[in-house]
């Protein structure tokens, strides 16, 4: 059995006086130890909500979570808070999207790192402080002794992200969720952080869930990829398979909008027409149909189901791109 097993995960936000938001709808995937699984999609498609649901970090009020998240076979969604807290930070941890707001501004970085080890590894404050320095060194922060005493506002964006990673790694978790760990950073630092995460997976056998809207990041890190649209997985495949030939029109659109070195300048970006706001609820057919160039009449009548099309590959589409059309498909040129 997979180390982390997500089955039919759904999250709905129910608010008074506001329409219910179905942010995540029937998402299923597995993560094996030592593998990196990507969750990819445009802003608002439910990536962060999925990862927060896995970690049990969604706000309690007005949030309905259903489905199943199993770590080593133990159901996390129905675990009492005390039990969950014994695992969070130790067996599973998370690197958050926005390092500046995710660090406590009035607590020194060192305390924020060592408190995890005091909690889960039974270390004294002094020993944990020493470990924290080693961790900072490992994530590539120079002069860790000084940095430990500093506060988040004294660190650069890249260092903050590294500190957050150090914090997440403090107990050598078996599952690490990285929510857009490089979005806020410039390109060189992006590359360094991705390298760091790759090394980690290779060295410790951590299972990594890599959340991003950037297919370039996916190509550089992931073993498997789940493409999310409006809260549902629309295509899921091994990374090589996916890049060799996307079958879902949305995946193809995402790929066409990635800048590539081999396409001539001036013709580099082919964004998907329309925006996420254009999507329709899945109940009324395919949510992507208002933006899809391959849409058929039945696409807006019958909701496509997710189906296996070959080993390790799933697809949710009435009119997928044919296999022989691989690589030449550019739906919006």
């Amino acid at each position, binding site marked *: 059995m997979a180390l982390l097993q997500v089955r039919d995960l759904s999250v709905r936000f129910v608010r008074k006086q506001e329409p219910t938001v179905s942010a995540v709808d029937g998402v299923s995937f597995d993560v094996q130890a030592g593998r990196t699984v990507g969750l990819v999609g445009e802003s608002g498609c439910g990536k962060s909500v999925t990862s927060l649901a896995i970690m049990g970090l969604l706000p309690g009020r007005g949030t309905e979570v259903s489905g199943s998240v199993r770590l080593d076979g133990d159901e996390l969604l129905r675990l009492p808070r005390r039990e969950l807290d014994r695992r969070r*930070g130790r067996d599973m941890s998370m690197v958050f999207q926005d390092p500046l707001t995710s660090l406590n501004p009035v607590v020194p970085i060192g305390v924020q790192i060592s408190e995890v080890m005091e909690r889960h590894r039974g270390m004294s404050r002094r020993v944990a402080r020493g470990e924290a320095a080693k961790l900072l060194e490992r994530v590539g922060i120079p002069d860790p002794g000084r940095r430990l005493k500093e506060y988040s506002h004294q660190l650069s964006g890249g260092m903050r992200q590294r500190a957050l990673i150090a914090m997440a790694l403090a107990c050598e978790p078996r599952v690490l969720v990285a929510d857009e760990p490089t979005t806020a950073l410039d390109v060189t630092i992006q590359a360094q952080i991705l390298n760091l995460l790759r090394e980690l997976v290779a060295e410790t056998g951590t299972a990594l869930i890599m959340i991003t809207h950037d297919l370039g990041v996916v190509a550089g890190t992931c073993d498997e990829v789940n493409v999310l649209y409006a809260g549902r997985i629309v295509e899921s495949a091994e990374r090589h398979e996916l890049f060799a030939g996307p079958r879902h029109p949305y995946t193809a659109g995402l790929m066409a909008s990635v800048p590539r070195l081999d396409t001539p300048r001036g013709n580099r970006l082919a964004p998907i027409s329309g925006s996420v706001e254009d999507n329709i609820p899945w109940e009324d057919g395919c949510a992507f149909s208002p933006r899809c160039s391959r849409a058929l009449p039945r696409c807006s009548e019958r909701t496509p189901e997710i189906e296996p099309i070959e080993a390790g590959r799933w697809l949710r589409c009435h009119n997928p791109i044919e296999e022989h059309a691989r690589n030449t498909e550019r739906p919006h040129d």
Partner: protein
Amino acid sequence: MLRYTVRRLGQLVIVAVVLSILLFGWLRALPGGPVSALLGERATEESRAQLVEQLGLNQPLHVQYWKFVQRAVTGDFGVSTGVQPGTPAMEVFLQRMPATLELSVLALLLAVVVGVPLGYFAGRRQGGWLDNLSITWSLIGVAVPVFFLAFLLKYVFAIELGALPASGRQEVSIDATHATGFYVLDGMLTGEWDAAWNAFLHLLLPAAALSTIPFAVIFRITRASVLDVLEEDFVRTARSKGLGARVIRGRHVLRNAMLPVVTTIGLQTGALLSGAVLTEQVFNITGIGQALSLGFQRQDYAVLQVVILATAMVYVLVNLVVDLTYAAIDPRLRER
């Protein structure tokens, strides 16, 4: 940080000078004056003129002010003409200050000790019974005038139930030693525990009345601030680390939530001092508040000047301490 403190102390001097000029002019612009207050309406012209001469009130205003400053820097603020005629004004102030300070400190302590935890738990369980109850209570706290509340407390607990003393600072029969003028502290220093306890009991009702407004404000700010902080990403990060409830509360929520509360506490000093004037009336405490109201009735320039100036200085100093505390909590402010 040191430079900042020095600069703030410099501001204190400027505040003192500006306020003293305004105060000096304003008091003398009020109708009446110490002479008619002392001698009454029917005094002869002669005796009036003599007293005016004696007090130096016939000289031009700027000359009077300059003399006032020259004496003030040596600690001489003139002689009381109305509150305690013949006693140096500074002495009147020093005698009465401990009573007011004791009362205000206990009131503030009550407000903080009750307001902060209540605000935290009300915010934590927003919309729960504790939340609703505390909000109602704090609304009553700000809506009911201190004066009325003081009367009510005195009537119910002192007169009807006889549970607590109705007035004064200490039972006269106790005959305690008063080394500092802070009666509770005096008792503790000399080991006269019954005296200390008695003084404390005398303080309870007035302090409870005086604490209502600061309590209401501190409670509401804490609650709002906790609600804000609970939404912050770093609290979610703390939860993602599986930390215990106590660490999350103390280290991550409260430390951040206290920042606006600390500022509020400083601003409440003003409300406390004005509330003390009314509370001291009701409970017949010979404090600064009483000196102030007597001073106005009897047009005692010397006492009013020293009391108002000293009160303003206390206000500025308390707010300096508040700012330093703020900087101690928030590292982002330390670099100034």
